[in-house]
């Protein structure tokens, strides 16, 4: 008779115990949550400021919710602040750089990863040795060279300089990936009558899609956020500014327009944050790769 009641009574006990065991974890979640809120605060503040009136910001309240949503701040940044142009420039430069980097790194990674040939060790050695070259060291000759080639005041010059620089990691990622593909693939392709180029374009390249995604995403991030090169390349021609340089110019010219500045920041960051939201896996894989290898 008491039998049915007993499981219920004993079930209540483990549940309480389970809660007690989980309590430290939920405390930890609360602590991490508070830190995370502080962590993203600058972005939250920026979004909030972009929708406030300048007077409301200067009043210095800590309230993050605007009294009234002022979308005109965005219109001001977009047209008066030239962010329409800056955004377009950044998109052109980023897409151009990503395409060039993916093509040249896939090609180089393929032959360096799969073939031994005279000079292959030397090339790999040079690439690895220059893995850590800082931009501050190479910038002056890059500018001088671009000036001599007539590329200094052009987006194409910016694209070439950005895609010629620090992409050693991408080549190494491709090389490592191609090296691990089984040799039977090539043999089958040769039997089918495919040449060197055919083997690469029809078999190897499609197989390397995960790596291509990783390299594209990381190059996108690197180029979208680039500042030093675009800054120097757009000195004499403000029409070439990317968003990162444009932001500097905007606050230089409108130092009191806080809400316009915040709106410009939101406009500039939305594309890269959206890319991150959808392609998070590839960001993480690309960065983790440098530790694993």
């Amino acid at each position, binding site marked *: 008779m008491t039998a049915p009641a007993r499981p219920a009574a004993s079930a209540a006990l483990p549940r309480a115990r389970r809660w007690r065991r989980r309590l430290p*974890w*939920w405390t*930890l*979640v609360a602590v*991490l*949550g508070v830190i*995370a809120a502080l*962590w*993203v605060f*600058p*972005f939250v*503040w920026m979004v909030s400021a972009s929708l406030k009136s300048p007077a409301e*910001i200067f*009043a210095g*309240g800590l309230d993050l919710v605007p009294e009234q949503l002022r979308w005109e701040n965005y219109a001001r940044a977009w047209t008066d602040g030239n962010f329409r142009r800056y955004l377009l420039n950044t998109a052109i430069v980023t897409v151009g750089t990503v395409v060039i980097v993916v093509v*040249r790194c896939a*090609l*180089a990674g*393929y032959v*360096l*990863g799969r073939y031994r040939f005279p000079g292959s*060790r030397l090339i790999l*050695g*040079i690439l*690895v040795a220059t893995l*850590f*070259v*800082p931009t*501050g*060291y*190479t*910038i*002056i*000759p*890059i500018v001088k060279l671009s000036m001599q080639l007539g590329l200094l005041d052009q987006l194409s010059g910016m694209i*070439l300089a950005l895609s010629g620089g620090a992409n050693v990691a991408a*080549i190494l990622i491709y090389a*490592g990936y191609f*090296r*691990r593909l*089984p040799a039977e693939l090539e043999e089958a392709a040769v039997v089918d009558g495919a*040449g060197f*180029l055919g083997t690469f374009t029809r078999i190897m390249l499609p197989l390397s899609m995960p790596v291509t995604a990783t390299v594209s995403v990381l190059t996108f*991030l690197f180029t979208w*956020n680039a*500042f030093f090169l675009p800054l*120097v390349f757009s000195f004499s021609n403000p029409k070439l500014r990317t968003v990162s340089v444009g*932001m500097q110019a905007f606050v230089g010219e409108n130092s009191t327009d*806080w809400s316009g500045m*915040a709106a410009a920041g939101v406009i*500039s*960051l939305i594309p*890269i944050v959206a890319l*991150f939201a959808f392609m998070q896996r590839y*960001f993480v894989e690309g*960065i*983790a790769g440098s*530790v*694993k*290898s």
Partner: protein
Amino acid sequence: MTGTPALARPREAPSAAPRLAPPQRPRRPGQRARARRRTLWIYAFLLPTVVLYGMYTLYPMIASYWYSLVEWNGFTADQRFVGIDNYRAVLADPMFWSAVRITVVFMLIVTPLRVFGAFFLAILLNSPKLPLSSFFRTLYFLPVVTTTAIVGVVMRFVLDPASGPVSVLAGLLGLGPIDLLGSSATALPTAALIYVWKFFGITLIYWLAALQTVPKDLYEAARIDGAGAVATFRHITLPLLIPFLAIITVLTVEDCFHAFDLMQTMTAGGPFYSTEIIEIYVYRYAFAATIPQLGFASAAAVLFGLLVLVVVGAQLWVTMLARRSGARA
């Protein structure tokens, strides 16, 4: 060991990376022509990289040395050879040594906070029992993807002494308005902390990747042996992570030499040059001056390249020594 990270990558299975001997078929006349064609393709594939990398990385590295030996303002064609005078001038400039000191201090503040802070956070986030851990990963990683130059500008406003939220909050707490970036005593530590915040996520991902390499069955075995969480951590996780400490530190230190974007947009080296890292020093003489001194700036840039080389090289050397003695023990 072929000596490069890419080649030293552990191969997953013997069958995964077979480098088959050339086919043992009898040599046909077409064979040699095909081999030659293959070699041509190989060099054709390398061409874009050789051209672009040569133009924008290798040539500038070498040209910097030439520029550092001439006196040149960048406008006129005449470059007057002055030998090591530029180096002498740079080394005699107290501002250069101040920039070196600031670069090193910046690195010394940022690296331990990032390496050890990210280590602890990674341990927590790696626990399967922690609820919402992937949500936290995303949030803590978020600053990494944002444009540094834009974050630098936004931070200037967040830390503004008059209307910035940080100063307003300090005022409400009775600390009065504070100007963290405006005083030379606090500007460098503040900038360093912002840099830690900005790129903390990268080091976090490094550690999480390192934690993934700990085999799951080791945990299982430890649990069966009755080891508690602390004992498992001390005797299994920690020893397996130590080798990663070296490479993660190297990567993080190297990252500290790329602070130009943040510094230039946030403080531009000020106030009173208290945050002037070497990259800003070079930039000031090469591009921001009314009469650029490209020779002088190149000499400083070359010295900066040497500093990076020495710091990173020394670390890699120590790492290799430690690994070798560890292998012997």
